């Protein structure tokens, strides 16, 4: 009897050990701490469907993240799967560090038409596919409702505002009306004193080489294009369309006192506090920041669509996907996790957390419901995403870090008033294009 009990016990133990050993662990990294809970919920659901695979999620801050991944490729410590970015994955693909998913997609007969148009193609090159889209983002303008009312600007006016680089359109006028000097004059008044501004109409960093939230929407609406499409090896930063846009933006801070001067911006830790502390009435933002403003704004605020430029309303349309490292020893399990994250099951979960807009329509509906229940109207982001021709894609190309570094210095010097946009951009464009020779 005792022997039997012992045997049963041993069987039970070996059984437990057996399942523990049979469980394969897939490591997964992401950089956005806000999204971690959503993907933990996804991983739990995934584990229910695939009891023998456990996903271990790790989050690291943006700068650390990329250093750890690139050095991890060499040291053999990179994660099996990681969230990737359009500015980073081209380099990994060109150096054969990430897995081409095409064979898996074909084998599993995956429907790749379920994603928002354009997103799937962002993650492929020459018939190879490196990721399944998981989310997207667009740009809108966050505004302080009280300041708007005080300036006598209606919400209807900012729904259809216009912009052009000559006189700034109604967008420029509204920013000026929202700007007040210490005597209470706004920036349209001839008595306005740009040296003693107590409330600015606009605050934004300069955006460096991509200006995703800072200038790309104005420049593209004015006829600028970054390059000739994905993987192009030539940039057009010397375009006069870009120069006049950038000069108009820079002058808001340099000459007109409407934007917080660039030299007054905090050099570290983001400029959002200048909006949330009530120093400035408006700022351009990406949809991934919706929850930041929900949690950090202590006054009434809203999201306005981007102004309509000479070529219409244009927002950058960007998205993330997951890459599998070529060095992963568990590619099959890694693929199953990637496939799950690209499926409605996971994207509906992620959507319900309301942190990002998933790449599948049903996930977006879940996100909209989550925001509506908190009383936040985010249609400024979704309308532009759903309007044909209103979006343009992130300029995917090799050497993004070097391009960024050159362009950041150029934009800094323009926004500091050291050089004109025309001169700085011409010179920077020559340096950028020299990288590809």
């Amino acid at each position, binding site marked *: 009897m005792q022997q039997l009990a012992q045997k049963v016990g041993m069987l039970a133990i070996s059984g437990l050990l057996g399942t523990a050993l049979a469980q394969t662990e897939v490591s997964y990294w992401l950089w956005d701490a806000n999204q971690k809970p959503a993907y933990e919920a996804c991983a739990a659901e995934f584990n229910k469907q695939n009891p023998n695979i456990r996903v271990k999620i790790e989050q690291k801050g943006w700068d650390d993240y990329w250093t750890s991944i690139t050095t991890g490729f060499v040291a053999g410590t990179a994660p099996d799967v990681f969230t990737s970015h359009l500015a980073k994955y081209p380099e990994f693909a060109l150096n054969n560090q990430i897995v081409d998913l095409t064979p898996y997609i074909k084998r599993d007969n995956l429907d790749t038409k379920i994603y928002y148009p354009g997103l799937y193609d962002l993650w492929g090159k020459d018939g190879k596919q490196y990721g399944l889209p998981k989310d997207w983002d667009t740009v809108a303008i966050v505004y302080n409702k009280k300041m708007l009312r005080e300036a006598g600007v209606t919400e209807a006016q900012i729904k259809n505002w216009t912009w052009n680089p000559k006189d700034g359109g109604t967008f420029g006028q509204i920013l000026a009306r929202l700007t007040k000097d210490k005597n209470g004059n706004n920036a349209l008044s001839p008595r306005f004193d740009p040296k003693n501004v107590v409330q600015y109409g606009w605050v934004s960093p300069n955006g460096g080489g991509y200006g995703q939230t800072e200038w790309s929407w104005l420049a593209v609406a004015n006829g600028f294009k970054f390059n000739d499409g994905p993987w192009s090896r030539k940039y057009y930063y010397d375009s006069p369309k870009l120069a006049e846009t950038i000069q108009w933006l820079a002058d808001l801070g340099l000459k007109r006192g409407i934007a917080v001067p660039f030299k*007054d911006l905090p050099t*570290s830790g983001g400029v959002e506090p200048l909006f949330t502390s009530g120093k400035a009435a408006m700022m351009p933002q990406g949809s991934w920041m919706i929850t930041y403003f929900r949690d950090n704004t202590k006054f009434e605020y809203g999201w306005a669509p981007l102004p309509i430029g000479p070529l219409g309303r244009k927002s950058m349309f960007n998205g993330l996907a997951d890459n599998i490292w070529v060095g992963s020893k568990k590619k099959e399990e890694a693929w199953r996790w990637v496939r799950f994250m690209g499926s409605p099951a996971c994207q509906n979960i992620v959507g319900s957390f309301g942190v990002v807009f998933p790449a599948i329509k049903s996930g977006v509906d879940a996100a909209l419901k989550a925001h509506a229940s908190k009383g936040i109207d985010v249609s400024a982001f979704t309308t532009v995403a759903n309007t044909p021709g209103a979006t343009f894609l992130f300029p995917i190309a090799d050497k993004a870090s070097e391009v960024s570094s050159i362009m950041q210095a150029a934009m800094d010097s323009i926004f500091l008033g050291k050089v004109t946009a025309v001169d700085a951009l011409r010179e920077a464009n020559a340096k950028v294009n020299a990288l590809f020779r």
Partner: protein
Amino acid sequence: MTSDDPKEAVHTLPRGWRGRTLSREALTGFLFILPALIGFVLFYLIPVFRAVEISFTDWNLLRPPKGVGLENYGRLIADENFWHSLRVTGLYVLYNIPIQTALGLFLAVLMDRVVRALWLRAVIILPYLLSSIVAGMIFVWLTNPQLGYINAFIQGLGVERQPFFGSPDQALASVAAVNIWKHMGLTALLFYAGLQSIPRSLYEAASIDGSSEWHTFWHITLPLLRPVMAFVLVTSVIGSFQVYDMIAVTTGGGPVDATRVIVWYISENAFNFLRMGYASAMSVVLFLILIAFTLVQMRLLRANQSDLG
């Protein structure tokens, strides 16, 4: 060995043994430095050789390195950004060292000659205990032209607000100022320790001879502090040349390229542009510069001798 008494142990050994092999005392000493030695070899010596090796290659981390001989060094000579970053670093050292050393010395003499209170020493060392990240962040916000207290104070005095970190003309000096604030406590403490080794009788004699405080400082304190001075200068010059963390939190090398110091530029090349070979070549050059500076300083300050005799 059964005996714990080293004298006895030596006694029992045959004549001449001590001369040929390690004495037990030397062995004990060696064991004491062993942990430090392991760290030195593993984390300093081997990486230096590796860096020299990598500097002769073209390596982007993701593909196998390719030998290119001296190409990286040739490129470095032609790279205006490299020279710019060296100039910025040199300027940073010039801002830092004289002020930090003078203030440290002043505080140390104050602690030694005027207020000899433990709490004062504690307060003076406090900024050093903050991490650079925290110190940098605090000052970025304190000096912010729109929201910071420092600018509110300046404007209260009727002076126009200053951009500090936000302007290419002030950014480097601002970083240096935070660094001085953070490090002068440590410098002061080192000088203070050095002051303790100067015999009080010398000061008594000086005061009997009617020497003024200033005169005593120049003719007794300063010359006798020379070995400590050498230590402080050598370590703080090296530290200033290698500034990185403070730049990373406060300015990220900007605005434009006003604070792109050499270590920042090296790390940009290594980890953002994935030019490991080129970054290593620059590290090797920096290493040689630092060795040269250190040797010159040691020589000039005769660091290994003391006037106390």
